[in-house]
């Protein structure tokens, strides 16, 4: 009976560990896409500002909003992580 209880407890621990590591892995994956997106967005914005400095104000405003929108994807992944993994 004691051995069975130990087996059940070990299985429960394994399940919790698997859930936590899967959530962490999913969060890491969810951060990759926005990272690529932000890199592309900022790279193009910098190129536009270097070519046309007089339009820098408009480019910076839209760039900042674009960064924040892209970051929302990572935040959604983070929220899934805290709901499943923590």
């Amino acid at each position, binding site marked *: 009976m004691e051995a069975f209880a130990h087996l059940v407890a070990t299985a429960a621990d394994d399940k919790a560990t698997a859930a936590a590591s899967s959530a962490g892995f999913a969060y890491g994956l969810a951060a990759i896409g926005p*990272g690529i997106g932000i890199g592309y967005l900022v790279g193009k914005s910098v*190129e536009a500002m270097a*070519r046309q400095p007089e339009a820098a104000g408009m480019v910076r*405003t839209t760039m*900042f909003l674009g960064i924040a929108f892209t970051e929302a994807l990572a*935040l959604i992944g983070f929220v899934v992580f*805290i709901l499943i993994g923590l």
Partner: protein
Amino acid sequence: MNDLHNGQQADAFTTALHGPAPEVKVTKDMVRRGLIVAPLLIVVCGFIWGMHGAYSSAYGIALVLINFALAAALVATTARISLGLMMGAVLFGYLIRLGLILLAVLLVKNSGWISLPALGATIIVSHLGLLVWEMKYVALSLAYPGLKPARP
């Protein structure tokens, strides 16, 4: 990256942008609007998840507003130095800010007053909601610069 424009050599690594920083203005608008809608969000979360939900909602709104402010400060500061530095700062700042949010949640996750579903819902709703609200104003300003839509 180098390009000839109006007879001048443009270089992202040496070009610095001086003058007013639009990110700071945008962020001030979003913080003002966030503070306006914060009581509503807190009441809604409190109604759904109880007092823990209300506390968590307030914490989530604070996280989102501080995240916006940090991002704006980073861009505004580094743009005065060089565009290349700004690009690097935005990319590493993204990772650092995500890490700070994770740290902020890990610090309180075992507290008695936290409700993780309320915190998560508040983070997503306030982040996206404030952005969409601000985007409406920015889009109107860019499309019709002479009209200057009224601020809340």
